[in-house]
């Protein structure tokens, strides 16, 4: 972490950048927030640890509008998002100085709490430099421990790899965290009967409170004004009538980001109701891979996106009912 601060200060000092976008320690051990740093003294609160899951790419949309260059710290997975935003002209490359930071998997406080750990006072073992495999948590109800792996975000278990796709320089090393099949859960659901599938999603989406956190955190959902907020389709934004509303929202949202979603996992990370929203996006990714060839959004800025290209021999929509 000190390397990051040191380098950021240097780049501020030599005028390469005028501000730094990173993470600031929160008032609890696990809630750092995205923040800008401009003066040396700001860095007292700078933090980079296992809880810095937030993908800073989307903030670069706003940062691109600001005067001068912004130093941004991007984790390997965040760089895919940055590339995708670049492809869509939503961020400006010249306005960003990207330091690719290493990652050993990010932590999910909900998972820690789900293990029955509550009244948290402090957590050790969440630093990137920490070689420990275990988190030690001091709580009001005594000291608790849990394996780092068990507290990792779902997305880190199916990590796309620790290679940065765009950067000006790299700092800190990463650790491979992939230990699960990215499409296993999608495949499992595909194998269910229509009744079971429906019951599964009905239960999950029934929890949705239409808070829009998934949409607003999503780097692909970068529309100035979402269709669900405009009167173009008079589709209301806020009602959760516990009927069709949420389905429409989530299907259309997934469709709008199909071929653009990098699978960064932010939607699932922030959902206050713990809805596995990535299952929608990943379904599209899986289908796109199967129907039109493997495609990873954000990997290559110049690649043709699957929904804005075609081949004469594409499968017919009837494939949905004919494939086993």
């Amino acid at each position, binding site marked *: 972490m000190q390397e990051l601060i040191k380098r950021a200060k240097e780049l501020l000092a030599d005028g390469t950048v005028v501000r730094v976008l990173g993470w600031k320690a*929160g*008032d*609890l051990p696990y*809630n*750092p*927030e*995205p*923040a*800008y740093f401009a003066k040396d003294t700001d860095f007292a609160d700078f933090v980079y640890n296992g809880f810095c899951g*937030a993908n800073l790419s989307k*903030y670069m949309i706003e940062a691109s509008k600001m005067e001068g260059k912004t130093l941004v710290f991007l984790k390997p997975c965040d760089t895919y998002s940055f590339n995708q935003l670049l492809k869509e002209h939503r961020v400006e490359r010249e306005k960003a100085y990207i330091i690719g930071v290493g990652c050993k998997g990010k932590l999910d406080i909900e998972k820690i709490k*789900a293990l029955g750990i*509550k*009244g*948290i*006072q402090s957590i050790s073992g969440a630093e990137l430099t920490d070689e420990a495999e275990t988190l030690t948590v001091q709580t*009001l*109800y005594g000291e608790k421990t849990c394996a780092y792996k068990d507290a990792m975000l779902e997305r880190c278990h199916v990590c796309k790899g620790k290679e940065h796709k765009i950067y000006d320089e790299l700092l800190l090393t990463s650790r491979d965290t992939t230990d699960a099949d990215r499409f296993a859960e999608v495949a499992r659901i595909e194998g269910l009967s229509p009744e079971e599938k429906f019951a599964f999603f009905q*239960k*999950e989406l*029934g*929890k949705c*409170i*239409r*808070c*829009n*956190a998934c*949409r*607003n*955190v999503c780097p692909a959902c970068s529309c100035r*004004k979402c269709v669900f*907020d405009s009167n173009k389709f008079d589709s*209301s*934004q*806020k*009602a*959760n*009538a516990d009927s069709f509303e949420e389905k429409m929202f989530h299907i259309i949202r997934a469709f709008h980001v199909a071929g653009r979603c990098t699978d960064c996992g932010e939607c699932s*990370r*922030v959902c*206050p*109701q*713990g809805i596995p929203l990535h299952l929608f996006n990943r379904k599209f990714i899986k289908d796109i891979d199967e129907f039109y060839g493997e495609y990873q959004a954000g990997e290559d800025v110049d690649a043709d996106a699957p929904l804005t290209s075609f081949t004469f021999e594409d499968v017919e929509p009837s494939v949905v009912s004919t494939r086993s």
Partner: protein
Amino acid sequence: MLKIEKEKLPELFAKIAAGQELYLPVNISGQVNFAAWDEEVQVDLTTLKSVKSPKDAFFPQSENLYTCKREGKKITIEPEELKNQSFVVFGMKACDVQGLKVLDQVFLSDPVDTFYAARREHGVIVALACHEPEETCFCKVFGIDCAEPAADVAAWMAGEELFFKPLTEKGEALTKSLEGLLTPAGEAGEQAVEEEKAAIRAIVEKLPYSNLSLEGWNGDALTEKFDSPLWEELYKPCLACGTCTFVCPTCQCYDIKDYNTGHGVQRYRCWDSCMYSDFTMMAHGNNRTSQMQRFRQRFMHKLVYFPANNDGMYSCVGCGRCVEKCPAALNIVKVIKSFQKQGGEK
């Protein structure tokens, strides 16, 4: 005071539900929220906080107001019926109950919101003391004692029993209807409850936010707070989602919309969030054009405007849900602390 063994709770719920609707914390695919009871649901009284506050039971996230029906060119309006049957909300916490008091200030003062009033009239609240408060809780800051929830019935869980103490007429009536299932708590019971209260209060003292100071947050501070340059920094990570609003027990803003069902137009209201860019959107645009202004509004409302208009009552109850759920790790505590820190530096 009465008591019932925890393992007999299903019987208790069945009995309550036999006479009226019963809402209580239910676990649905990993998340606990208040929902209607039936034999299938997985009741969860141990999780401290439901994701959404139980304000839903009195102020539903969306609620139909009336339906317009058309025959030829003639339009008739059918108002939605007001709640006219009693219902029980079981397991609200002291902060949630205080949240309703905030809503009462808004909805029960003139002009009275009849939909809300009808629900309040018919709702019977069984409030549960907070067995193990958590680090995100700060109800103490608002003078709430989570060991002593004040509703129609107060309840405590201690050991293998649930203790049940009616506090109002409605509470008495409910208790009476449960005769046979509830047994007198006896002295040992009273003792156990006192011990539980003491344990809760001891933990509350140790909570990191319990000593948060609200000094300077009142109607008098309006201009000074409003004009503070701090907001410009504080709002930056805000994603403009409505999570904080929708989990909050006191947020009361709603939007009114029409829905064409094909056989009529339903006019309904649904929760709105001052964090949304289209909040109070009018033909000319929006009152608050930047996210900074929207962000500021939420906290100014809770900590300045509301107390200024309601004899000092804050419209925050310290439940800590926003602290837990904000996707960008922002929350009211950080705002209060930031101002405090700035004040200290001066």
